[in-house]
C-alpha cells in the first residue's frame, strides 16, 4: 500500500475544501471498498480524509420521504422501521448485499460510490483496463465475462455496477444531496451514474472533492408492494448474476403504478423504463410480465460469457413481478 497522510475531518465544509484542492486526496468513510483497492494497488491516495466523525449519519422521516445521512450504515438503514414497512425491497437489497460485518461498516454514501468488481480492474498486473488506465484497452471483453454487464456497455468497458441497494433506489427515483467547494446540489440517482462510453474511468457526475451528504428516498403509496430478488452462484454472500427490484400498485387486477430496475446486468444500476411502459395500465399477469421482461432486455449486448444472462434476467424479472403481484392481489 502506498503511504498516505491520515487526517480526521471535524468539519464538512473544510473536508470538502481540502479534498477539492488536492487531486491526490480522497475521502474515507467505511473503507470497505477503498482500503481493499488501496491494498491491491488500484488506488493510491496520498492523503485520506476520514469523514466518519462528521455529523452526516442518521435517518429522518417525513410523510413522503426517508432522508438518510450519507454515513448511515447499510445495517442501520435496513433496520429503519419505515424502510422495513414501506420500502421492503430496499431492506431486502441491503440485507442481501453484504455480510453483517460489512453492513456494519459500509455507509450508504460509500455503497453508492463503490467501484467495479471487475477482476481486471482490481488487478494492477493486468495492463489493459480503461477504467484504471484510460486508453489501455479492456481485458474483460476478451476475458472471463461471467460477472460482467450486458446493458449500457461500450467497446471500452463492460464492468458491472454491483450495488444491490442502488437497484431499488434508482427504481424509487431517490436523490443524492451533494456538497462541493461551490455549494450544494441535488442529483436524481437515475442521472447520477454515467455509462462507460469512451470514458469508463468517469463513473458518475461528481466532481473531485464533491461529497455525498445525504440520500433522499421517496416513499411509495401505502398500497404498493415491492420485492428484490437476487440470483447468484451461491445462496448467500455473493454478487448478483442477475437481480430485479420491483414495486407495484395493483387495482382490480391492473397495474396502476410500477417501478422496475435490474441489477447484475448494467454498467449502472439499471432502471427498466421500457418494462415500466409495458406494465403501466396493463393487466397483471403472465403475458404482460413476459412482455415487460422482453422490453427490459431488448438493448442487451451479451458476449459469449454473458449470453446466459439475457434469459436469466428476463426470468428473474418475471419471477419478481409474479411475487409482487401475488402479494398485492
Amino acid at each position, binding site marked *: 500500500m502506498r*503511504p*498516505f497522510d491520515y487526517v480526521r475531518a471535524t468539519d464538512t465544509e473544510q473536508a470538502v475544501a481540502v479534498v477539492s484542492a488536492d487531486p491526490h486526496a480522497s475521502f474515507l468513510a467505511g473503507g470497505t471498498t477503498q482500503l481493499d483497492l488501496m491494498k491491491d494497488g488500484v488506488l493510491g491516495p496520498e492523503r485520506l480524509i476520514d469523514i466518519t466523525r462528521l455529523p452526516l449519519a442518521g435517518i429522518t422521516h417525513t410523510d413522503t420521504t426517508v432522508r438518510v445521512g450519507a454515513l448511515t450504515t447499510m445495517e442501520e438503514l435496513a433496520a429503519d422501521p419505515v424502510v422495513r414497512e414501506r420500502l421492503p425491497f430496499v431492506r431486502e437489497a441491503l440485507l442481501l448485499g453484504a455480510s453483517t*460485518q460489512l453492513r456494519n461498516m459500509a455507509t450508504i454514501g460509500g455503497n453508492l460510490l463503490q467501484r467495479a468488481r471487475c477482476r481486471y480492474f482490481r488487478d494492477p498486473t493486468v495492463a489493459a483496463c480503461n477504467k484504471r488506465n484510460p486508453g489501455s484497452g479492456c481485458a474483460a471483453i476478451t476475458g472471463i465475462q461471467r460477472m460482467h454487464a450486458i446493458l449500457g456497455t461500450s467497446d471500452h468497458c463492460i464492468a458491472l455496477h454491483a450495488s444491490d441497494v442502488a437497484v431499488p433506489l434508482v427504481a424509487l427515483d431517490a436523490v443524492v444531496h451533494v456538497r462541493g467547494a461551490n455549494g450544494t446540489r441535488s442529483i436524481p440517482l437515475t442521472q447520477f451514474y454515467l455509462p462507460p462510453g469512451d470514458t469508463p474511468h468517469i463513473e458518475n457526475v461528481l466532481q473531485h472533492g464533491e461529497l455525498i451528504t445525504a440520500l433522499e428516498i421517496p416513499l411509495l403509496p401505502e398500497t404498493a408492494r415491492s420485492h428484490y430478488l437476487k440470483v447468484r452462484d451461491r445462496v448467500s454472500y455473493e454478487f448478483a448474476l442477475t437481480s430485479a427490484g420491483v414495486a407495484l400498485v395493483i387495482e382490480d387486477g391492473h397495474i396502476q403504478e410500477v417501478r422496475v430496475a435490474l441489477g447484475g446486468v448494467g454498467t449502472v444500476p439499471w432502471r427498466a423504463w421500457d418494462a415500466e411502459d409495458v406494465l403501466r395500465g396493463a393487466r397483471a399477469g403472465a403475458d404482460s410480465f413476459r412482455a415487460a421482461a422482453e422490453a427490459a432486455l431488448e438493448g442487451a449486448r451479451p458476449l459469449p460469457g454473458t449470453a446466459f444472462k439475457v434469459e436469466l434476467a428476463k426470468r428473474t424479472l418475471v419471477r419478481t413481478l409474479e411475487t409482487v403481484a401475488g402479494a398485492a392481489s
Partner: protein
Amino acid sequence: MKHMETEAPPTGQSPPDVSQVDITLTVNGTAHRLEIDSRVTLLDALRDHLGLTGAKKGCDQGACGACTVLVDGKRVVSCLALAAQYEDREITTVESLCPSGELHPMQEAFARHDAFQCGYCTPGQIMSAVSLIAEGRANSEEEIREFMSGNICRCGAYPNIRAAIRDVAAGG
C-alpha cells in the same frame, strides 16, 4: 493525530513518505497508546502491535470473516479497517470472552459440537456467533445460515457451527 482545524489545505507538496499516527485504541476495556504507520489496519494493530493474535488474517480483503471483532458491540472485519479510524471506539476481541480462564458459553458449545477442524476461522466464527445472538438472528437454521455467511470455514464445519449456535441460542 492530525485534525482538520490545524491542517492547512495542501499546496503542491510532494507525496508523503511513511506517515505515522499517534492514537489510543481501547481494546477489551484497556486503552493502548500506539505510534504506528497510518497504513496499519485494525487487524494488524491488534495482532502485531498489541499481541492479541486471536483475530486471524485469512483473506485480508473482507471476504472470509476470520478477523471479525466487535466495535461498539457490532461485528466488523478488522482487516478492512484502518486502526486510526477506530480511536476512542470500544473494540472487543475473542480474548475478552474468557477473562478468568473459564470458557464463554459459545466457546464451550463450539468445543462440545466439534465445530471446527483446523480452527483457523474459529475465533472469527465465535465473535460473529456471539454477535448474531445479540442481534436476535439465531432463531432458525435458515437465519443462522444467512447471517453467519460472512464467516467462511474451508474445512466445512458448518453443520456443527450451526448446532453450537442453536444450542447457545436455546440457552444451552
